[in-house]
């Protein structure tokens, strides 16, 4: 009977002990895998958001309650329907230190017969835009025409379809790459289209007018890039002083806030993983300690029959390694089932940009979780193997004879 065969028999014929070890190691691997995947996805989301934002300052109506609304709009696609007078754009452009300024108009569709889905619609000016256009250019090789839209990756429609917004048909020209932010659920169109849609919304009773404006004179946000060498803080202050009824917000501050939140979440996840591991390691230690007592007699028999200490340690280690490997593989598989289908739920719960990892990173995280779990399992088993291999067979077999 070869040792591997003995090991397999020992595992199969002690189903309780084997299952307990597999479950524990699966729990360890699952927590590690899910934790690393979530943290990696959050970091990827932050990077994506930084890459996509492209502006140094955002000017929004004072009523937009500044950063909170903008952050939610960018991260979660929270419907933002705030407006200010379009003349603010000229005021911004006139401000010293401003290199480029481009306006966007926001509108939300309704979850009703008039609209395909409830989404955030963003109108931008392709001529002057430096925020959305470079990103759209990755998916569309010409400028957006009237009543044409580009949709975020999570908007449920396909390229070439007609997309209905307030009973107006817009043609889907392209679908954008994933960003992990609220932009994934937005629909982009040019200024002519957005004004048609604003008018259509008005007909449905969705008002977007400001006190003294008309449809063609409103904007929701102005994205600003400062001149090279200019101090964004100083320009921000100038904008706050120069543009009435508007608030200028530095995107760096927003990014810092998001990064801080992300670090907080990462720390929490790390603490949770740590707690899970400490708990599981304590249980693992108890299980192995129990195993030492339970198997003392059995292993004394092996020694009696001629197994050396090294062979005995090897057999116990092989058992532990097989259990740990099975547990690590199942834990990682279970972790995948838990973490990937619930991406949206995780994103919504954490309120942070969340961009699912690419296949390479997922494989790396899985390998990391499996390797660490198997190593820890084997390390715990080594101590047990060492203790059990030193069993004095004569005395042990005589005890309780």
């Amino acid at each position, binding site marked *: 009977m*070869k040792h591997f065969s003995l090991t397999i028999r020992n595992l199969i*014929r002690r189903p309780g002990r084997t299952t307990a070890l597999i479950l524990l190691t699966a729990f360890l691997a699952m927590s590690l895998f899910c934790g690393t995947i979530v943290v990696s996805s959050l970091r990827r989301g932050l990077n994506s958001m930084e890459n996509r934002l492209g502006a140094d300052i955002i000017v929004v109506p004072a009523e937009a309650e500044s950063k909170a609304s903008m952050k939610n709009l960018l991260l979660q696609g929270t419907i933002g329907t705030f407006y200010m007078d379009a003349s603010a754009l000229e005021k911004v452009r006139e401000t010293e230190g401003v290199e480029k300024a481009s306006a966007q108009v926001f509108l939300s569709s309704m979850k009703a017969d008039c609209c395909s889905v409830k989404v955030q619609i963003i109108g931008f000016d392709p001529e002057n835009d430096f925020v959305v256009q470079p990103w759209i250019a990755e998916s569309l090789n010409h400028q957006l025409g009237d009543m044409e839209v580009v949709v975020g990756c999570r908007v449920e429609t396909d390229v070439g379809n007609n997309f209905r917004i307030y009973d107006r048909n817009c043609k889907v020209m392209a679908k954008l790459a994933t960003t992990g932010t609220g932009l994934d659920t937005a629909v982009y169109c040019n200024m002519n289209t957005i004004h048609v849609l604003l008018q259509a919304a008005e007909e449905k009773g969705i008002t977007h007018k400001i006190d003294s404006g008309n449809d063609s004179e409103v904007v929701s946000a102005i994205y600003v890039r400062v001149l090279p060498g200019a101090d964004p803080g100083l320009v921000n202050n100038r904008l706050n002083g120069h543009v009435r009824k508007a608030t200028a917000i530095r995107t760096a501050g927003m990014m810092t806030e998001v990064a801080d939140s992300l670090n907080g979440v990462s720390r929490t996840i790390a603490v949770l993983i740590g707690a899970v591991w400490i708990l599981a390691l304590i249980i693992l230690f108890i299980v192995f300690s129990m195993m030492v007592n339970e198997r003392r007699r059995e292993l004394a028999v092996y*020694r009696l029959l*001629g197994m*050396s200490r090294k062979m005995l340690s090897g057999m116990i280690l092989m058992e532990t390694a097989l259990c740990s490997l099975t547990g690590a593989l199942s834990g990682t598989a279970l972790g995948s089932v838990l973490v990937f289908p619930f991406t949206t739920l995780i994103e919504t719960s954490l309120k942070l940009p969340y961009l699912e990892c690419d296949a390479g990173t997922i494989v790396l995280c899985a390998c990391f979780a499996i390797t660490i779990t198997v190593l820890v399992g084997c390390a715990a088993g080594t101590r047990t193997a060492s203790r059990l291999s030193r069993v004095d067979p*004569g005395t042990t077999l005589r005890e309780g004879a």
Partner: protein
Amino acid sequence: MQLRAENVSRRYFRKHGEANFFEAVRQVSLILESGKLTVLNGKSGSGKTTLLNMLAGLLNPSEGKVFLDEADLYTLEDKELSRLRGEKIGVIPQGRSAVDTLSVYENILLPGMLYGGAPRTEEAENWMEVLGISGLRNAMPAELSGGELRRMAIARTLTASPGVILADEPTGDLDSDNTETVLAALQQAARAGKTVLIVSHEADAEAYADRVYHMEHGTIE
């Protein structure tokens, strides 16, 4: 195959009377010859099992040496001693000595296969038949009585056919019929050239012995 103990002693460090240690075996010398069945009797606690464990290479003597032919057992590395024990010394210990995750048949075949040998199926079948446990072939140890477990351990040793057989109270859990069967089987092994030692506190074994030693207070008389 000759097994020889030269002035072996074994002390345990525990409070015993005026001393801080207890001497279980004291300066014992003993020669076990091949083809002979030797019986070592004595009361419980006289040091018989301790001496057997030292002879089996399972317990380091505090003093003295144990030789299997020319090999000084306790100068060998664990790997060499374990292999030697596995191949040349068969021990039938007191109490349960089954591997609980293996069936009776697998337990019986186990010793000969630990170092990659072919399964001694014919011998196993024969000894199971002789010892009356053929019907328990696929049973698990947990399903066996004390007497059946004991016969399984004896069948395991006889199947492996080592040069030396050391049996510690082999008939302890057996009725008179099975006691006779087991003692006859061990005698048969001795007649076949094995070196056999039976440690017992019962008188039954003496009738089968070529030589009888009596042990008391750690010494052989």
